[in-house]
């Protein structure tokens, strides 16, 4: 149950109900600093809903989310980002009519201060900050291997590059926890191993990684621990090898007969 560091994220009795549908119900879990943790489960298990509650898209119906010991459930999304949680999306959601570089610069929004008067008066502080943001954004593009594509519109990038750009944009907010929603969806084998390597390098920067992943090879390869969701409930957790051997997990995936 315990990981390598103190708990970064602690979820207690978390629920998100939509009318009678219990999309997420009574989830308890904790994630420690420096871990790479995967959430797996059949379609409709409530994984993305769980991520959406963590990031403030849904308010949650019940329970607590503690990030670095402070409650964040129900806060507006931008506040949660400011506290150090960033994410990517299952269906890529880049700002399609902006360049790759601008996308990353937008990701930096919560970490810069200049607001209205600075830009209008072109103060020195503002100009310095703006150029600092740009060079930092270029570093993040470099980090994910997209430096050469900075001036391309996001919508014109190849699919794999778009996925990486989402990671760069999320990293630009300097998160402590990076949440990746199916980062390898639709990717071929080379792109997959690229992304696994990227996630490891993200962790080396000191960022904790939480991801939803369907490709078991990736899950087994990358995860320190795995949580298994089914029907909105966490049914198992542990090291990847333990979890795939768990009878409840096999039943969730294959049905009772399969077990």
């Amino acid at each position, binding site marked *: 149950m315990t990981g390598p560091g103190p708990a970064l994220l602690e979820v207690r009795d978390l629920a998100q109900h939509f009318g009678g549908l219990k999309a997420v119900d009574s989830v308890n879990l904790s994630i420690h600093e420096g871990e790479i943790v995967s959430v797996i489960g059949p379609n409709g298990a409530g994984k993305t809903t769980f991520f959406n509650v963590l990031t403030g*898209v849904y308010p949650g119906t019940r329970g607590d989310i503690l990030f670095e010991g402070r409650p964040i459930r129900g806060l507006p*999304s*931008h506040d949660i980002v400011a506290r150090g949680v*960033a994410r990517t999306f299952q269906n890529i959601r880049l700002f399609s009519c902006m360049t790759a570089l601008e996308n990353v610069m937008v*990701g930096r*929004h919560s970490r810069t201060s200049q607001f209205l008067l600075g*830009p209008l008066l072109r103060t020195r502080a503002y100009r310095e900050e703006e150029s600092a943001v740009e060079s930092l954004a270029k570093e993040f593009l470099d980090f994910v291997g997209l430096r050469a594509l900075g001036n391309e519109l996001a919508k014109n990038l190849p699919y794999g590059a778009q996925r990486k750009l989402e990671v760069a944009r999320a990293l630009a907010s300097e998160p402590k926890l990076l949440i990746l929603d199916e980062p390898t969806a639709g990717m071929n084998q080379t792109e997959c191993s690229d992304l696994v390597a990227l996630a490891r390098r993200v962790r080396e920067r000191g960022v904790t990684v939480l991801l939803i992943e369907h490709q078991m090879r990736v899950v087994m390869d990358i995860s320190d621990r795995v949580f298994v969701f089914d029907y909105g409930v966490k049914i198992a957790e542990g090291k990847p090898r333990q979890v795939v051997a768990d009878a409840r997990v096999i039943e969730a995936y294959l049905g009772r007969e399969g077990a």
Partner: protein
Amino acid sequence: MLAQQILNALTLGAIYSLIALGYTLVYGILAMINFAHSEVLMLGAFTALGLATFAPAAFGSGPSALAAMFVAGMAAAGLVNVVVERFAYRPLRAVSRLAPLISAIGVSIVLQNGVFLWISTQSLSFPRPVVIGQISLFGASVSSLQLVILGAALGLMGLLHFFVESTKMGKAMRACADDISTAGLMGIDADRVIAVTFFVGGALGGAAGVLYGMNYGSIKYNLGFLPGAKAFTAAVLGGIGNIRGAVLGGFILGLLEVLACGYIPDGAQWRDVIAFTVLIVVLLVRPSGLLGEKMAEKV
């Protein structure tokens, strides 16, 4: 003759464009038509007049007076727009698409009648702090007032371009226009961006109100209605939500009206008919406007 017409068209078009920008900025982010925008520009003009009337000492004369009128008109219009958004639109934003629209119509009526009842039911003369002289240019006679209108409008459009393209807040506005919920998940406070958008759009409208007052020499409680309706048309013509489209649409509409006046017998009476007929034809061919992109079906 043609040079003169084009010059007149540019002056008229510049005012339409400034107003159209206010509609298009708000629509770009909220997909909502701010029907109170025409009253916002009217209040900008009245604020500038109030300054000239009640603080003539601070007001001065010449270029400083001109600058003071713009600053006052733009600041007041921007603030009114922000307050209207905060109390009349924001609480309804999550309810339905229609509710803020109805609220906007209500705000429009309240503001217009407020000025009608408390300030004046009549036309008030509007100061022109520039000496009106005529300059000859390419065979056209240009008044210094026209130069002020064109210069101010183009200058403000240049500022807006810089703001939207190059500043952090401008990027945040574009991000919100692209996908407002993702923008929130990337750390942008969408409510704040929306407030700034209303301020900027309102301030441009306020500037247009001041220019309108100077152009016609008098203002009235209902001055916003017709230019507001036409600027909205211009925004749709150019492709609503598209900044360049709003500017293009404003100038095209100005050109259509002026050419109708100049080249068609009794054209002055027909100019609105002609302008709006062209609009209908354009929209039949290009429903999303001249520069508008086809709305992508969102999944």
